[in-house]
């Protein structure tokens, strides 16, 4: 057994926790009247405990491994003009504060809580209001960010930063946060081995979760609701995505999930519901998409020609205007064992597998691909006639995408879960 870096950090933290507890109290009446004074005075592994009240101080900087803890009602207020807290040392714990009012700036990535070049930090149970960036992690190793609530201010995309932003970091755990109304909910850039679990990310102008050069990361059981787009995974390899909800991402350029220039990703047991586009794959190689559910989307899956080697297995497609569209003629991937509500075949031997192949790309979808405005004719009788003609005259249907073993949909629409 080789202990990973995370284990070593845990050992250090454990050692710190077992050391004798020094607690420095910050209250309006002393012993410490400012947080900065207490932090400066605190020895390694001490706890600085801040009483309820609104604290307005110059940016506080922590370099020692201490715990900074806010009592209920402790508020750090940036008065619209500064970062609130900068963490530079290892093993720092920040917990229980309300951070607010950093103000908006276009010249720097101003964050309420900025962790820079630190390791093994824990940021939990904080609340962020009216912050440009809420939590900004740069060159961080092995930090955990959990159980925070980040509430954005209404504004425009450029007037707000990201709720949780990571740059050049490794081994992050981002869990159970509730993130609302920023540019990106979570933005991971040049960040590897991140684990993003159980977060709710909603109402962001751009993406609920944004991967940029973030290899070997996993995100699971998150909910991405009503963002500009749900999740964008770009220029990354080895990303695993499972059991997430992508819903209500609607708009002319909105996706549940955008895959752009990625390789070797796995997408399993996610649900895509009510998105304009469920998945848009542009330059995705060797992506395995299995056991996902696509329901009531405009386009469930759009594959651009730059995509190859995809495997689409045992997914369920219900109530989408288009299940699959492609903009090229090549083979874009393998489809097998999916359930399609548009399947018109039969299953005479009742083994659950349809007896004839299913071609999920509608001819009309190709027309819409060429002339998007033709979408106006959706649900018209003419398009219905086109569909019928397509079944009679299969020469119209693109042969490139075919499911040779479509599964029969059960009447209860239970699908793939």
């Amino acid at each position, binding site marked *: 057994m080789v202990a990973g870096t995370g284990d070593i950090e845990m050992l250090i933290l454990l050692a710190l926790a077992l050391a004798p507890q020094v607690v420095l109290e910050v209250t309006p009446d002393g012993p410490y009247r400012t947080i900065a004074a207490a932090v400066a005075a605190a020895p390694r592994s001490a706890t600085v405990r801040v009483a309820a009240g609104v604290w307005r101080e110059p940016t506080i900087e922590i370099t020692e491994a201490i715990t900074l803890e806010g009592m209920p009602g402790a508020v750090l207020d940036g008065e619209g003009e500064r970062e609130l807290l900068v963490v530079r040392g290892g093993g720092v714990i920040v917990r229980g504060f309300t951070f607010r009012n950093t103000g908006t700036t276009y010249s720097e990535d101003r964050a309420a809580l900025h962790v820079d070049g630190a390791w093994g930090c824990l940021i939990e149970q904080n609340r962020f209001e009216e912050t440009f960036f809420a939590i900004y992690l740069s060159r961080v190793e092995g930090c955990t960010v959990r159980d925070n609530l980040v509430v954005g201010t209404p504004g425009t995309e450029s007037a707000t930063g990201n709720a949780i932003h990571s740059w050049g970091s490794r081994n992050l755990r981002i869990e159970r946060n509730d993130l609302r109304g920023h540019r990106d909910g979570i933005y991971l850039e040049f960040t590897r081995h991140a684990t993003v679990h159980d977060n709710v990310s909603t109402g962001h102008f751009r993406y609920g979760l944004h991967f940029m050069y973030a290899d070997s990361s996993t995100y699971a059981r998150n909910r991405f609701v009503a963002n500009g787009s749900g999740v964008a995974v770009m220029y990354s390899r080895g990303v695993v995505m499972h059991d997430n909800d992508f819903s209500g991402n609607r708009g002319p*350029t909105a996706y549940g999930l955008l895959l752009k220039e990625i390789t070797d990703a796995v997408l399993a047991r996610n649900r895509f519901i009510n998105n304009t586009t469920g998945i848009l794959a542009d330059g995705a190689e060797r992506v395995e998409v299995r056991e996902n559910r696509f329901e*009531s989307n405009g386009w469930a899956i759009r594959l651009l020609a730059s995509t190859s080697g995809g495997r689409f297995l045992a997914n369920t497609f219900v109530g989408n*205007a288009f299940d699959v569209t492609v903009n090229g003629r090549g083979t874009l991937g393998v489809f097998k064992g999916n359930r399609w509500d548009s399947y018109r075949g039969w299953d005479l031997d009742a083994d659950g597998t349809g007896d004839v192949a299913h071609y999920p790309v509608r001819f009309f979808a190709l027309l819409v691909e060429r002339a*998007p*405005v033709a*979408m106006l004719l959706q649900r018209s009788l*003419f398009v219905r006639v086109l569909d019928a003609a397509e079944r009679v005259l299969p020469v119209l249907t693109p042969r490139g995408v075919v499911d040779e073993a479509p599964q029969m949909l059960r*009447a209860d629409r239970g699908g793939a879960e």
Partner: protein
Amino acid sequence: MNTILRLLVPAAREAVRGRWLLGLMIGLALLGELLLRFSGGGPTTLVSLLDVALILTPLAGLVIGTMQVHHAREVTELLLAQPIARGRLFIALYLGTALPLALALVIGLLAPFAWHGLLVGPDAWRIVALAAASGALALVTTAFAFIIALRADDRVRALGIALAVWLVAAVLWDGLILLIALGLGARPIEGPLLVMLAINPLDLARVLLLLGTDAAALLGYTGAVLQRTLGTDVGRLALGSALLLWLTVPPMVAARVFARKDF
């Protein structure tokens, strides 16, 4: 007014006696019931009903309207020899045909939803909007049927023309739009196409209903253009005017044809 009512009642009674309307109403109600029962009453139900209503309503309006004019021909002549103004007779005859049809459609669509207690609640307006659109389409297409039947005295010929009109409005017109859309490719032609859609009351109703359902947001870029164009006050005004025009102009044309017709 009194005269119109006195004429309208027997005309409507005559329309209902045809059994067509009853069949239509019960058929729609049964379909709705089946859909509610077996597809969970979600958006799928509404969309399926929308499909059926948009195909069936104009067909019913055109066919029943045409048949009714010919069916009522002798009575019309009998009444025309009485001291009754033609205008009033027309209103009675038209409304006596169109209103029962519209009512049958509205009841047929709403009944299963009412039965399942789905006529209250935040989503109720969708089925109500569908029913209202069906009713309005019935009024429009019945007026067209009157124009056709009043101009073509031969029963079979009139029915043929009515079916041809339906085919054009329900199918071929959209084919033309598709051809134009494909021909002009990516150029911004939403505006002209919207006008083309508004010219066809079937398309107008379909697009309006699509906008009302979730589907609009799923239309992608086109949906956004639609929302942007039609979601504004000007857009709404234009749509309202188009609807109003469709509801008033065809009956007025039919009335004029009726007033000038030599029986």
